[in-house]
C-alpha cells in the first residue's frame, strides 16, 4: 500500500522513511510558494539552514520539508496558506 500526504489538497505519494522534500520533488513539485509570494518557497540547502522549504502543517507548527519525515495523512501547504485559515 502506498502512503500519501496532501499538498495544498492534492495527494502526494511517499515511500517509508522519505522526507517531505524528497516526496514533493519526486512528484515534480519544486515551487512550494504561493504565486503571489515572491520569492517562493523551494527545497534548497537540504540541511534545515536556509528555511526556504518551510511548509505549513494543518494543526501543527510549520516544518522544514527537508528535515521532516513524511507521515501518512499529513495536510501540508504553502506558507502562509494553511496558517491564514486559522484567522
Amino acid at each position, binding site marked *: 500500500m502506498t502512503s500519501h500526504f496532501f499538498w495544498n489538497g492534492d495527494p502526494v505519494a511517499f*515511500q*517509508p*522513511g*522519505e*522526507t517531505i*522534500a*524528497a516526496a514533493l*520533488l*519526486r512528484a*515534480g513539485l*519544486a*515551487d*512550494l*510558494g504561493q504565486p503571489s509570494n*515572491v*520569492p*517562493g*518557497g*523551494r*527545497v*534548497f*540547502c*537540504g*540541511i*534545515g*539552514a*536556509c*528555511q*526556504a522549504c*518551510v511548509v505549513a502543517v494543518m494543526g*501543527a*507548527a*510549520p*516544518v522544514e520539508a*527537508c*528535515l*521532516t*519525515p513524511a507521515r501518512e495523512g499529513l495536510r501540508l501547504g504553502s506558507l502562509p496558506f494553511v496558517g491564514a485559515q486559522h484567522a
Partner: protein
Amino acid sequence: MREAPILVVGAGPAGASAAATIAEAGLPVLLIEQRDQFGGAIHRQPAAGNDSHVWRPARHRRNWAGLMARLQACAGRIETRTETIFLGVDSEGRFLFDDRRAACVFARRPRAAIIAVGAVETIRPFPGWELPGVMSAGGAQVLLKETGRPPEGPILVAGSGALLPALAAQLAKAGNPPVAVLERGRPWNAPAALARLALSWGPMSEAAAYATTLATSRVPYRCGAIVTQAEPDGDGLKVGIRVGDQRQVLRVRHLLIHDGIEPNRTGIPLPDPDAAVPVLLAGDGREALGADAAILDGRRAATQVLARLGQATRRMRSDERGLIRARGFQAALTQALHSEPVVPAPETLICRCEGRSYAELAALAPDASAREIRLMGRFGLGACQGRFCGPMIAALRGQPLPAAIPPRWPLRPVSVAALARLTTDETE
C-alpha cells in the same frame, strides 16, 4: 540525582566521534540530532526502507561503520534524541531543544557541551538563484544519498569546489549525468597549489575516481565558467552561462550551485573551554576541514572536555598532525580554485528570505555597520537569520558581518505551542 551528561549536538562524523570518545571514557552523553538518522551530510544514510545505495568512497564507508560500531559498543551511556533541533542557550544558561516528534521544547543543563553542527554552503548570487529548480549542490547530494534517485531531467552543476565533480559523478552513477560541470576557478593557472594537492593520496584517489566517471559519462568539466543568470522556462530553467568571453544559454530542469562551505555558526554559542559549563566546537562547524578531519576534531574536542573534567587523557599528537594536514590541503584547494568576486547585477537577490536585492545593499552607506545593514537594509532579518546572505554580504563588502553577541536563541524558528510545553530536568 542522575549525573549530568556531556551534551553533543550533531551526529555527523565530528559529533559521533566526540560522543563515542566521551562514552568510552565512562561519562554519560546526551547526543542530539535534527534528523531521524545519524550521519550528517557526508554520511547521510538511505531513508529507512530504501535499499538503493549511492556510490561513495570506501574510505568514507569504513570510517562511518567504525564510528557507528563505537557508538553501539557504549550505547548504554549515550542518550540519543533524534528529530530534535538545538535552539541555543537561554539567559539562565539552559540548553534548549525542540523535540519535533513530541512537539515540545525541553531544557537541559549539561556538564559540558560539544557543538558539531557542520557547515553551510556558500553561494555567489546571480539573478534567478532564488528560483524553484535551483538547489544547492550539497542539498541535492543529501537528497540523492537518501533516495538513491537522481532528479529527473537535464541537470547543470555550477559554482566552485571539490563537491561539484563529486556530485556530478554520483549523479552519473545513479543514472542521470549532468549536462556539464561549470567550475568558476582556473586551477591550471595555479600549478604550485595543484602540486601540493597531488601529495594528498586519499582525496586525490577519490578525485581520480570522479574524473574517470565524468569522462566515461561524457560530462564536460569546464573551468573559468560561470552562471550569469537563470530564469523560469516552462517546467525548467533557462540558464545563461559565460565561459571566457563566450556566452551561451542552456535549458535545464535543475541547476545545482555551490561555492564552498563555511562553519555553521549563526546563533551557535561562542566556544568557551574554560567556562563553568565548557562549550567547544568540533568538525566543520569549527573549521571547515572536511569529513576525515571532522572525526579527528571530534575526538580532540572530547579529549579537551575530558581533561577539563579531571579525567586522565592522552593527547593525540597524530590527531593534531592530521588536522594540520587537512588545513594545508584545504588552503591549497582554495588557492587552486580562487577567483575574484564578481559584482552582481543590481536586481540580484541577496537576502532571499526578505527579498532584498544587491541594488538595495549597494544603496546603504559603504561604512554601514552590521546593525544598519540589518535594521535599515533588512538583510539577515529573515527566517534563515543571515546564514546565506551573511557570507554573500561579507564577500561583497570585503569584511565579515559581525553577529549578535551573545548569540540569541532560538537559532531556528520554534512554535509557541512547543515552547509552552517546556520541560526541564531541574530538580531545585
